[in-house]
């Protein structure tokens, strides 16, 4: 193969990879603006989540078949994952979440924090990252578990209050 042809082949391959890895995601961000989902209800297995006002979401970030949903609250991202059945309690679940968090590059766990979802008490941990801060809450109710992970560049008091309101909108079945 001539040098010119091999250069052309390499350029085409590079273009294909970059298109799929960069261009398509950028296109997705460009054509999929966030939508206000305030007041809407999302169902993940046995759990319903009612989003408070001024909560946004990108299309594709509600995946009921996977038990996942991700919201945008101000500049913060809030991921909620639900699964069942779960045999352990909220403290164990929080420890499992912390196990993963503490091995992330640049993540440092800090103090515990209270978490409540529609009257169900959870177990929470705060953490800081290289670029911001966050916290994780774990809930277990009737063998259904819900994990909430919130992260943002700067979680100011107002944003945290709105995230707590979102968490409080999580309802476990008849809880």
């Amino acid at each position, binding site marked *: *193969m001539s*040098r010119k042809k*091999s*250069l052309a*082949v*390499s*350029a*085409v*391959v*590079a273009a*294909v*990879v970059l298109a*799929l*890895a*960069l261009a*398509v*995601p950028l*296109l*997705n961000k460009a*054509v*999929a603006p966030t939508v206000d989902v305030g007041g809407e209800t999302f169902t993940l297995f046995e759990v319903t989540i009612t989003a408070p006002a001024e909560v946004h979401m*990108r*299309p*594709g*970030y*509600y*995946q*009921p*078949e*996977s038990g*996942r949903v991700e919201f945008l609250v101000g500049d913060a*991202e809030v*991921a909620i*994952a639900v*699964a069942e059945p*779960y*045999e*352990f309690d909220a403290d*164990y*679940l929080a420890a*499992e*979440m912390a*196990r*993963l*968090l*503490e*091995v*992330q*590059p*640049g*993540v440092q766990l800090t103090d515990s924090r209270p978490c409540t979802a529609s009257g169900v008490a959870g177990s929470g941990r705060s953490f800081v*990252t*290289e*670029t*911001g801060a*966050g916290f*994780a809450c774990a809930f277990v109710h009737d063998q259904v*578990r819900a994990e909430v*992970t919130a*992260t943002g560049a700067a979680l100011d008091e107002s944003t945290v209050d709105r995230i707590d309101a979102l968490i409080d909108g999580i309802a476990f079945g008849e809880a």
Partner: protein
Amino acid sequence: MRLDPTSPPQWTAALFIAAASILLLYNTLPVGLAYPRAGTCALLLFSLFALPFWWLRRRLAEHLSVPGAALAVVAVWGATVAVMTSLYGSNAVRGLLATAGGPAWAGQWSPVLGAPVVEEVVKAAGVVLGVAIVWDRVRGVLDGVVLGAFCGVGFQIVEGYAFAMSSTVLNRAGDVVEPVVAVFVVRGVLAGLWSHAVFTAIVGAGIAYAATRKTRRSGWVAAASLVGVIALHALWNSPLGRDGFGLGAVGVLAAVAAKGLPAVLIVVWIIRWAKRNEAPAAALSGAAEGFADEERGRPQAALRSGENETVPPRSERAVPRRHRRCPVASVAQGVRSHPDPLSGGRSAVDATVIGASRVVVFLASRTGADQVGRRFGSGTGGEHGQ
């Protein structure tokens, strides 16, 4: 394969593999560190995927010209570049589908419409690059089959590992190996045969066919192989038969076989066709390298296999009928203008003398389980997870 600092394909492969490896490690290493027992178990188990393909390579050795280093390059491409590109690309396609048709529709059809396109295209790109790197050594369809299979198995190993670790993380039951073993049984044993390696082997055959024939028609064959594999992959990921047609576990297994078997049969047919219609690589080496042993009447293949005493001189050997149609074999026989039935009647020499030629992650924003689950739990393959 020798390192050539002026080779664009080698530089392209090196740069993309390096970048993707960093991303892959960044995304998978923390989970492996958090769950060392499960991670080690998953790595060992899913590395077993490589064994059947290594055996296949040995089995086809006399028909292969591509060096082992090229197979390693495409395997690493599949394990790194293809995986990471699919991670970002498939999630984006899912987002686009959700924008167009809603999240539920995207959830159901993204594994059918999105993941197969992204994954097969990026794996095929790796095979194209591999062929370009060892251009002078690709002498038949089987070279492409094995290049494709190794690219696919690289992808399959990392995907299987990620699925297993995702299962462990999502299990939230500590550093245990049961989820890993369960995923290995389902993905490795029940569904492992007809997976990425088989799909990419078909594309590899098409690419090698085009590279060795160099005709417009062969180019269309390569394109058709890619489209066909995307269709097979989409069929595999489709919800069709997922309920076992109401026949329980037997029905599910039957559905898995019905959806996966066509790809396996196609690969078997390609291998048989290539072995029947293409001369062994050693004979082609002879053709390309001047028949070093021609005068002694001992083909190199025989020399290599230690059959020197039993192989008669070339002039006395009957040319197998199945090789007579093969233009390259014809060259080996000294026939310089045998028309290639697959290249529109062009001179075989012109047409085919090839010798001349979320996981982990969380980056700053989310947990590893999130990433792994997003990509491998829902982004690419639904319940089969291809």
